[in-house]
């Protein structure tokens, strides 16, 4: 490693690292980066098929494992949503579905998509793959723990899916699992189903804690030389902040789940007041169902941002790379991510405006909730301002980004309806809510996932995904999903409540039948369109165009690995040294329209680069 630091003025030397123009000092002075603090990490290299691909300690393999398993559960969630839409749109064709089935599918679809699909995919999948590469580490700091994390997730998914086969079936309490109904007869799966759900969640949280510790410590303590926090790509910032939220929010879910399990199994009365059921007073008494809701949403609201923040981060990078322009207002973006993350712990009860909690909470939570809208709006402005005067490649990745902006702006703005306590009163528990959160934390993050898949597939597999197929995939998904959820808001305006197995005997919702049929058809098409991606991936793995090094001319570290796809240990002999932020695109005076993070200042001396 080039330890050619003459002056040992320490931090002084690093902070006064003026780049370009200044002309003070020799070349080596300009390029000086503080020596390494941390000794080289020893890695366990697998030598058999099992240690290399199954019980593997390489974060990249674990990331892919997470990605595949999360996608698998996601597909199950998708199929469940088809069944639900079949019932809602064409009840006569769904004769095999009872109300029990419907509620079980609703519950499992919700839980799978939010926790086992989106959270696992963003943090487990993208987090594992990208964090070590993007911060210039050889691997996650605790590879063994990381492996255990994935296998806990595996077992959690197993337990979750096992609940389909127990007597009574999976729980049908809605993904919020509100007691008392979750553990009382009259709700499907109130015995074994809810028990397995709680066990699965506990396993997930345990596994996630192991993974989350890894992501945090890798970002905090294992960055490469020159990589300051403010030089990290926003992807890492998003995943990092989301992980902090997860570490602090999942405990509330764990506690709530544990207490409900005790109520269910031992007959304690944490959440159970005196209850009259089928003419008999149950053994419970004195508990408070609202407490569970507070615990759940103390977890649940940060959970929304656990899904959203990585999406924010990733989309910023994709937009920046593909419009050949730095992300506009990087610092603002970082502070917005951190600010949103911090505030997300103070807004939880906006999910509970009509839950019967202390009515005065409405003032507090409406205010904090609308405050969050400000940093979020700033992020949106910065995304579109990044496009402004860029040099936009309208490839598939960019299309997904644009799709994200449209759906996110739409879904974010309907959030202003629901966050504002008065407006929430008529709209809560209606289809408006369904449409809002699917738009903002279903479709928008999905757009990001897809964009990220098209963007990083050349890195992971070394080949480009097919553009034409990708465009079909995008337009079918985007237009289809938009036409599912945009009209759905208006069902909420009529007053159609959510979680209704059927609703057509109300006179004033008769007009909704046609819309429901339309939405269902669109949902079938969108779901089926995802097959294009699977086909595309299989095709590409066989005959895709080889990508080579840095195919998108990006700046961040994951593209400068010596081999593509990167090997275990990522960097070969030497760790990279970082000299700049990852957004030096189209710098005036530079030969190319990008300068990678590892390019020392002495190589681009005549450029006018922002000091970062």
């Amino acid at each position, binding site marked *: 490693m080039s330890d050619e630091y003459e002056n*040992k*003025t*320490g*931090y*002084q*030397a*690093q902070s006064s690292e003026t780049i370009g123009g200044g002309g003070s000092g020799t070349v080596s002075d300009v390029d000086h*980066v*503080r*020596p*390494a*603090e*941390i000794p080289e*990490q*020893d*890695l*366990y290299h697998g030598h058999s098929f099992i240690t290399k691909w199954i019980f593997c300690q390489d974060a990249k393999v674990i990331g892919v494992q997470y990605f595949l398993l999360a996608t698998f559960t996601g597909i199950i969630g998708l199929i469940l949503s088809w069944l639900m839409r079949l019932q809602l749109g064409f009840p006569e064709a769904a004769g095999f579905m009872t109300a029990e089935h419907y509620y079980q599918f609703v519950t499992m679809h919700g839980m799978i998509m939010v926790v086992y699909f989106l959270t696992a995919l963003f943090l487990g999948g993208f987090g594992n793959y990208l964090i070590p590469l993007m911060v210039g580490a050889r691997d996650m*700091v*605790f*590879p*063994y723990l990381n492996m255990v994390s994935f296998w806990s997730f595996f077992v959690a998914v197993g337990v979750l899916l096992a609940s389909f086969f127990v007597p009574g079936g999976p729980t049908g309490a809605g993904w919020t699992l509100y007691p008392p109904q979750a553990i009382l007869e009259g709700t499907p799966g109130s015995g074994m189903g809810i028990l397995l759900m709680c066990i699965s969640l506990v396993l997930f949280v345990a596994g996630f*804690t192991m993974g989350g*510790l890894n992501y*945090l*410590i890798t970002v*905090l*303590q*294992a*960055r*490469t*030389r*020159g*990589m*300051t*926090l403010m*030089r990290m790509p926003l992807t890492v910032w998003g995943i990092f902040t989301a992980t902090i939220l997860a*570490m*602090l*929010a999942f*405990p*509330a879910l*764990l*506690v709530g789940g544990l*207490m409900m399990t*005790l109520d269910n199994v*031992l*007959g*304690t*009365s*944490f959440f159970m007041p005196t209850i009259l059921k089928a003419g008999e007073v149950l*053994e419970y*008494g*004195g*508990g*408070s169902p609202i*407490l569970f809701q*507070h*615990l759940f949403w*103390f977890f649940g609201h940060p959970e929304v941002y656990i899904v959203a923040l990585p999406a924010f981060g990733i989309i910023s990078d994709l937009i920046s790379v593909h419009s050949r322009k730095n992300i506009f207002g990087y610092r603002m973006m970082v502070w917005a991510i951190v600010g949103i993350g911090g505030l997300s712990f103070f807004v939880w009860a906006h999910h509970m405006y009509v839950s019967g909690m202390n009515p005065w909470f409405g003032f507090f939570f409406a205010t904090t909730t609308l405050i969050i809208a400000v940093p979020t709006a700033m992020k949106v402005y910065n995304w579109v301002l990044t496009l402004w005067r860029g040099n936009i490649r309208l490839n598939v990745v960019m299309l997904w980004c644009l799709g994200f902006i449209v759906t996110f702006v739409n879904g974010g703005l309907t959030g202003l309806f629901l966050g504002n306590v008065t407006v929430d009163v008529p709209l809560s528990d209606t289809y408006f809510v369904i449409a809002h959160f699917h738009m903002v934390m279903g479709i928008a993050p999905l757009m990001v996932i897809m964009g990220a898949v098209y963007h990083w597939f050349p890195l992971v597999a070394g080949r480009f995904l097919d553009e034409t197929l990708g465009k079909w995939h995008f337009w079918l998904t985007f237009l289809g999903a938009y036409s599912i959820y945009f009209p759905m808001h208006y069902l909420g305006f009529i007053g159609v409540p959510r979680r209704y197995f059927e609703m057509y005997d109300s006179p004033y919702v008769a007009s909704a039948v046609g819309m429901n049929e339309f939405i269902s058809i669109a949902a079938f098409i969108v779901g089926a369109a995802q097959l294009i991606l699977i086909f595309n991936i299989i095709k590409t793995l066989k005959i895709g165009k080889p990508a080579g090094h840095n195919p998108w001319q990006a700046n961040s570290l994951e593209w400068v690995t010596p081999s593509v796809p990167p090997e275990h240990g990522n960097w070969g002999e030497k760790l990279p040294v*970082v000299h700049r932020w990852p957004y030096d695109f189209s710098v005036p005076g530079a030969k190319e329209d990008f300068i990678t993070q590892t390019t020392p200042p002495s190589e681009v001396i005549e450029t006018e680069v922002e000091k970062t």
Partner: protein
Amino acid sequence: MSDPKIEGYEFKPGFKGMAQDTGSDQTMFKGVHWGKAMMWIFLLSDTFIFSCFLISYMKGRGSTLIDWPNPSEVFALHVGGVDVPLLLIAIMTFVLITSSGTMALAVKYGYEKNRKMCGWLILATAIGGLTFVGMQAFEWSKLIHEGVRPWENPFGAKQFGSFFFMITGFHGTHVSIGVIFLFIYAYKTFKGHYDEGKRGWFTTMKGNYVEIEILGLYWHFVDLVWVFIFAFFYLW
């Protein structure tokens, strides 16, 4: 610990140092071992678990209309013809603080590479923890004998039994896990794994006395939680 020495890095004190550390490359917590940083973040997460338990307890106790039993009487021990309030709990607190003290010293001697002393102190800590768990088991059996169950409570509100068994059970689980690790670490210390830098069972990291401090953090945290449980559950 005092500031470590890092080549090419000048430490600034106080809040300036905080900004400097946060803005620097490579690490944010200067000189802090990965495992130690991990333990701190884990404890932060665990703090949220215990906070949620205690907040639920507060909400549960506050919103029941049936009288909460007086812990001072429920947990009294009958010694020598008089009821001494909270005697057992006082002894348990004493034991746990003692073990916390021995743990703190073990960390100190560990860093001073005093293997024998360190090992014996860890062992003492483990025995303290074991005593604590044993006394807790005694307390549980006493209450169960008196008819307190997670689902019912002859002295008043149902939730008393529920929260008592859940919170102390969860804390006791933490203590028990700690005790197991203390015995393992005592063994490793006596064997000299930390002097030789022998790799652990599941990690590629080399053994180092910092591991004692990491375990120490966990153990002090268990003590810390007990301070809160003692105040809120037994005294309030």
